[in-house]
């Protein structure tokens, strides 16, 4: 993967907290049309990695390039404007607002600015059409009027995804989107991921191996902040070192 084609590239990024090396010397790249999964045991540094790529955390070392631009020092909202979308490990929505309003504010974020003080919001059909489209895509069409806080957990995860997609991002960072989902919901998620990967470079942090091995084109294994293996799904599945590090002796990655 050369610098020329990567939508997102991290070069030797590191981040410590106190004495703990949460992320150490990680290289990573994402290409449009591909899903790059990152797996590893708890505490491996996966969420810290997402934080570094999204911009909430500053790396101690290393560089990050988004669409060939150096964004290492760029704040979160500017990276978002450049085409970076993310979902959160712990659902992060606007519970008091309706599903429609949640998606609408996400679509609104894509506009150049929102310093309009007089006309009522969410009136333009270009916005409302897009909201309906996203809701339909996530099967939340019927729920648009409901308060986001009252939805089931599964629908929360879908709403998270809808909001991340609202700005048509070219890079998508998904932090455990399948967490807490039932079997049907997981299948639905896999179908959605398959569909959206065509236009985006996706980083998928996940624990659910079904999801990972169904959709991933590339898998990276992280342990204690470092990458111990990276390659195609079949390679990783048969990689002894990865299995041992992740699951301990006697287990396999064929979940």
């Amino acid at each position: 993967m050369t610098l020329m084609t990567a939508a997102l590239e991290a070069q030797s990024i590191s981040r410590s907290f106190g004495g703990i090396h949460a992320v150490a010397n990680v290289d990573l790249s994402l290409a449009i049309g591909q899903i790059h999964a990152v797996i590893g045991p708890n505490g491996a540094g996966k969420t810290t990695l997402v934080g570094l790529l999204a911009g909430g955390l500053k790396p101690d070392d290393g560089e990050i390039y988004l669409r060939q631009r150096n964004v290492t020092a760029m704040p979160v909202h500017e990276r978002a404007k450049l085409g970076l979308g993310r979902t959160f490990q712990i659902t992060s929505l606007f519970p008091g607002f309706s599903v429609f309003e949640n998606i609408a504010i996400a679509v609104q974020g894509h506009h150049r600015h929102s310093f309009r003080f007089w006309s009522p919001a969410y009136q333009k059909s270009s916005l409302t059409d897009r909201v309906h489209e996203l809701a339909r895509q996530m099967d939340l069409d019927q729920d648009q009027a409901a308060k986001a806080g009252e939805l089931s957990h599964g629908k929360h995860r879908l709403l998270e995804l809808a909001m991340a997609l609202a700005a048509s991002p070219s890079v998508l960072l998904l932090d455990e989107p399948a967490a807490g989902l039932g079997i049907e919901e997981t299948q639905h998620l896999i179908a959605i991921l398959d569909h959206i990967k065509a236009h985006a470079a996706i980083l998928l942090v996940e624990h659910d191996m079904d999801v990972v091995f169904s959709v991933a084109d590339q898998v990276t294994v992280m342990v204690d902040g470092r990458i111990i293996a990276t390659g195609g799904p079949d390679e990783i599945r048969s990689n002894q070192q990865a299995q041992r590090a992740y699951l301990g002796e006697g287990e396999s990655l064929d979940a």
Partner: protein
Amino acid sequence: MTPSARWYLGGAALVAALVFPAWVVYAQEPFWLDVMIRLMILAIAASSLNLILGYSGMVSLGHAVFLGIGAYAAGIPAYYELHNGWLQLAVALGASGAFALLTGLVCLRTHGAYFIMITLAFAQMMYFILVSIEEYGGDDGLVIYSRSEMGFGVDLNSNVQLYFLVLVCLLAVLGFMHRLIRSDFGQVIRSIKVNEVRMQALGFATFHYRLVCYVISGMICGLAGWLLGNFTGFISPEMMDWTRSGELIAMVLLGGAATVIGPLVGAGIFIGVETLLPEFTIYWHLYLGILLIIVAKFGRGGLLGWWMRWRQG
């Protein structure tokens, strides 16, 4: 309450407000005119605080500083024999806007408790600066002998005419707040209050939005201050004392934060208590204090919220 009932009530209130001065003149009760003017001015100030406190979750304990700035914007030009009301108003809006911008740049980098205290500190800073400027009266304050000249045959030295000016301003502010909350900007601000991290991840430069919100709020309060300076004719640093800011917070919460009408209701309750209770006891502050504690403990949405819940059964 149904929307049409709301319209009827609002319309009735408006009509009452319009004919009120006629009653005052007829019944020869100028005192009540003073009360209403003061009530409306404080309602404007409370509305401005509601914008940052109720809708944006920014708890400022120094908001009265804008009342003071607006009042001195009337007083200081008057001291130099500059009585043009439009000029003074421009100074009031400009000075409060500038103060909000400069202090906002520092304050808004903090959150939660630190924000509360730094807004408090900046207000106290202005208080002490004005106390130390002997030229403008310092501690003793400044007296205005003639109210702002607005032209167009308007004479603000007549309390009735001042009343109507204040009423127009109040209606304009309430109307503006109503539109603002529902606008793109309003939605962004309200969303930032709920989940700022998410908003940044969605591409919003949240700091800029909060800063603009803070400046708008400061300017509206500056307007209230200019009206207050004209009304009382006496301008002192006491106007920006932190206890004044506490009273503004009380008004917002008494009436119900994050509603357009709430601050007006709250100001009404507060002024009502302040006007009527002293008739019964000189120790009326005690009861006001108890009321505030009760509202803090039990009143989500203030007295308005209580009333709404009671009506819903």
